[in-house]
């Protein structure tokens, strides 16, 4: 058989088809694509993919066609024999847009029977997208052999898409196709159903009802998607605000340099990754695990230093504290700018944080998911710390009644310093997480400071649960407003709503009651 194929004479339909590429005529080329793709010849895939990349050379004089490989070696397309060089008279076979679609479809059907499951699935999906009638046979053939469930489903959908657009398909086949597409139920199925053109009455009716049900399910999914984005944004807000909830909420200190503690955490991550990159590249996946405690210590230590050197002189003068810490934030930003440069520094994602997975109709990225989990973990640990440790008890005592706590033998100034250090340290941890989704630049903290204050004020000062609820409410509200009003208007609307909300409830969602309010 091989010898027969190798004969230079025009021995079969495959060779005839290949020769047609040399005619430099678009309709001949289309025929040739059809013949080659359905031939089952092992050369079919290299030929078609060469055609797609403009590597298929045809010589109009000798009617010979050559495939130039990406490595520069060439073979005769009809026989597969290596040739020394392509003649100068040969030129690349030209394509137009219509042909490109046929080429895509041909490649799709050629890879339908690849041994690799992923390739088969991709091929089935590309046939679904192109839904070229010519691919029907290939899909049927592949469907008969297919054993993998998800590939089989994808093939079924591809077949349905083809049948829906095939003018001579029977009504029963088309009704089946509509039902299959309805089962798929995503944006693409919707696009196929709405754009299918003239159909028998029963099919149109079925399609209309399918479109309705797909649209309503898509609406639900888009709600789910918005809710997920909202949760994700909420977790970021919570992470940025949680340290502030301690310093502002529990201690009553307005720390405008809070954002800079977040920035310091992010830069700590950068430094850790730099060291790992240059010294121990194998540890890269653990870089964040190393950075978290380090960022806590660095930011926490700076926090204690700030409390001891500036803030302790300003207790009871909240407006002055605000100004002093604002000045501090300028100094810290400029210090980082001087040390690391004004541009963004690159912080990489470890492998377990990159990528995404599909859940129904929505895509969930791992880094967002991890950040959500991480935020909740930090929140839980903090809550437990305040509730069950001696330090937490002392902190609560000092914030509730400073003089009484002092009389009971608590070293209040030490507790102040530690509380402020704790809040700053948590901001540093937030910086580690935010370095994964945001640009690490000296301005990183600035972009979070107003949002963080909004969260704490909205949730209610002095209440960690309020901060949690506030962050997720704002996050979700923001993401639900975004599709309606646009990103910027949505944000403005949220700010205006918070301003109005504070008028109604000046102490936030979960206000402290009793004497502490006026203190």
């Amino acid at each position, binding site marked *: 058989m091989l010898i027969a194929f190798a004969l230079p004479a025009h021995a079969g339909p495959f060779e005839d088809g290949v020769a047609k590429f040399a005619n430099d005529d678009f309709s001949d080329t289309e025929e040739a694509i059809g013949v080659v793709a359905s031939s089952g010849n092992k050369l079919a895939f290299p030929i078609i993919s060469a055609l797609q990349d403009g590597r298929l050379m045809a010589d109009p004089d000798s009617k010979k066609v050559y495939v130039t490989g990406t490595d520069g070696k060439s073979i005769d397309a009809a026989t597969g024999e290596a040739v020394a060089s392509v003649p100068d008279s040969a030129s690349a076979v030209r394509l137009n847009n219509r042909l490109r679609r046929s080429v895509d479809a041909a490649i799709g059907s050629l890879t339908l029977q690849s041994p690799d499951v992923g390739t088969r699935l991709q091929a089935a999906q590309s046939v679904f997208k192109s839904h070229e009638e010519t691919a029907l046979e290939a899909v049927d053939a592949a469907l008969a052999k297919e054993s993998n469930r998800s590939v089989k489903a994808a093939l079924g959908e591809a077949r349905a898409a083809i049948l829906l657009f095939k003018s001579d398909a029977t009504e029963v086949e088309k009704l089946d196709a509509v039902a299959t597409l309805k089962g798929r139920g995503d944006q693409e199925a919707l696009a196929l159903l709405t754009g299918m053109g003239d159909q028998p009455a029963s099919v149109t009716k079925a399609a209309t009802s399918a479109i309705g049900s797909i649209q309503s399910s898509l609406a639900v999914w888009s709600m789910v998607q918005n809710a997920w984005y909202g949760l994700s944004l909420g977790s970021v807000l919570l992470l940025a605000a949680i340290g502030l909830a301690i310093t502002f909420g529990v201690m009553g200190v307005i720390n405008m340099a809070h954002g800079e503690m977040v920035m310091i955490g992010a830069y700590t991550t950068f430094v850790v990754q730099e060291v790992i990159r240059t010294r121990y590249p194998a540890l890269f996946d653990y870089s964040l695990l190393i950075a978290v405690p380090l960022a806590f210590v660095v930011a926490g230590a700076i926090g204690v230093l700030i409390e001891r050197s500036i803030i302790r002189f*300003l207790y009871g003068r909240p407006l002055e504290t605000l100004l002093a810490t604002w000045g501090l934030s300028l100094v810290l930003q400029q210090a980082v700018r001087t040390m690391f440069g004004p541009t963004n520094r690159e912080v990489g994602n470890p492998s377990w944080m990159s990528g995404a997975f599909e859940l129904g109709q929505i895509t969930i990225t791992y880094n967002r998911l991890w950040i959500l989990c991480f935020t909740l973990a930090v929140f839980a640990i903090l809550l437990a710390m305040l509730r069950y440790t001696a330090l937490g008890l002392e902190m609560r005592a000092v914030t509730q009644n400073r003089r009484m706590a002092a009389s009971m033998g608590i070293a209040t100034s030490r507790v102040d310093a530690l509380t402020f250090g704790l809040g700053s340290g948590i901001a540093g941890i937030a910086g580690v997480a935010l370095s994964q989704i945001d640009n690490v630049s000296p301005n990183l903290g600035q972009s979070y400071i107003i949002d963080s204050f909004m969260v704490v004020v909205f949730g209610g000062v002095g209440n960690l649960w309020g901060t949690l609820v506030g962050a997720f409410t704002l996050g979700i509200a923001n993401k639900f407003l975004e599709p309606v009003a646009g990103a910027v208007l949505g944000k403005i609307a949220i*700010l205006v709503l918070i301003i109005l909300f*504070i008028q109604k409830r*000046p102490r936030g969602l979960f206000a402290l009651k009793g004497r502490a309010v006026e203190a």
Partner: protein
Amino acid sequence: MTPHMLTRSLDRGATIFLAVVAACGILIPLSNLLLPAGSFLQVPTYLVALWGKYVCYAILALAIDLIWGYCGILSLGHGAFFALGGYAMGMYLMRQIGTRGVYGNPILPDFMVFLNYSKLPWYWYGFDMFWFAALMVLVVPGLLAFCFGWLAFRSRVTGVYLSIITQAMTYALLLAFFRNDFGFGGNNGLTDFKDILGFNVQAEGTRAALFALSCLALIIGFLICRAIVSSKLGKVLIAVRDAESRTRFLGYRVESYKLFVFTVSACMAGVAGALYVPQVGIINPSEFAPGNSIEAVIWVAVGGRGTLVGAALGAVVVNYAKTFFTSGVLAPYWLFMLGALFILVTLLLPKGIVGTFNAWWDQSKEKRDAATMASAAAEDGVTEPKMAE
């Protein structure tokens, strides 16, 4: 304003201040226009524009001192009122360009032609008339402050909460004005001005006149503030600052007093912005940045809150320092200095320059008086409000 009120409201510091501002307002433009260029005493035009900018900042600082120093309202959003006044003036200046723009459209400003506006948005109507624009300079910031203050003060939003929501207000406006479809030129703002009231904005004479006008506005603003704080109303404001609840229990409608002074202050900031824009030649959304408003607060803190003179002085001193340091080799360290200024002033100089000087002066005067007349010190009237936290 009765002459009696005027004389009562002026003490020695205020008189010196007014004399200095008036002298600057007259002498600097005259020296710029009449003396030959390059002469030792001639003030170059760029300096006139620069000092004009400082005077506008001084008016803004005065506005902040009025509410912060005398009523305890720390607004971190006063830059918004300043910028709104500036935009109102900028809209007038844009309409005056007429057909001299790049696209030569007689009605639409260049950026609108560029953004495919078919007709002028309704809120641009009337800005071709100066009196209307001048009115809007007062009305827009005043109205925003009135609505904002009415909501905030009535529901007793005070202290840092108020500071934070004023900051949110200016941040929201910043985001809004950055949008192209908001109709105010988006990111680029309004610029490329040609005429104001028929005079070329770039001309030396116009600049000198604008400088003189800014000084005049500073004097008028100062007199208004003095009149307010030295009246009976001003005493109530100080009471609100020092003990808000107690003032309320004494029967005063605290929120009305606050609302009044907040609105007046916003109008002043608007005027400052309106005078600022023709002198610097541009207004863009970055004027709304929360950082600008906080910087304006620190001018007041440096000069001395609750002194009025100190606020204006602080604005000029800090901005002169900013110009001086950001133009030289020390430019990378300016933010360190500004940050350190914030920290050191709040920690070491809570009364500011003028407040500290006054305290020192009073003390030394007291000593001198005590030396001569042992019993006279007890009768000392309150001329400067005492800081109390």
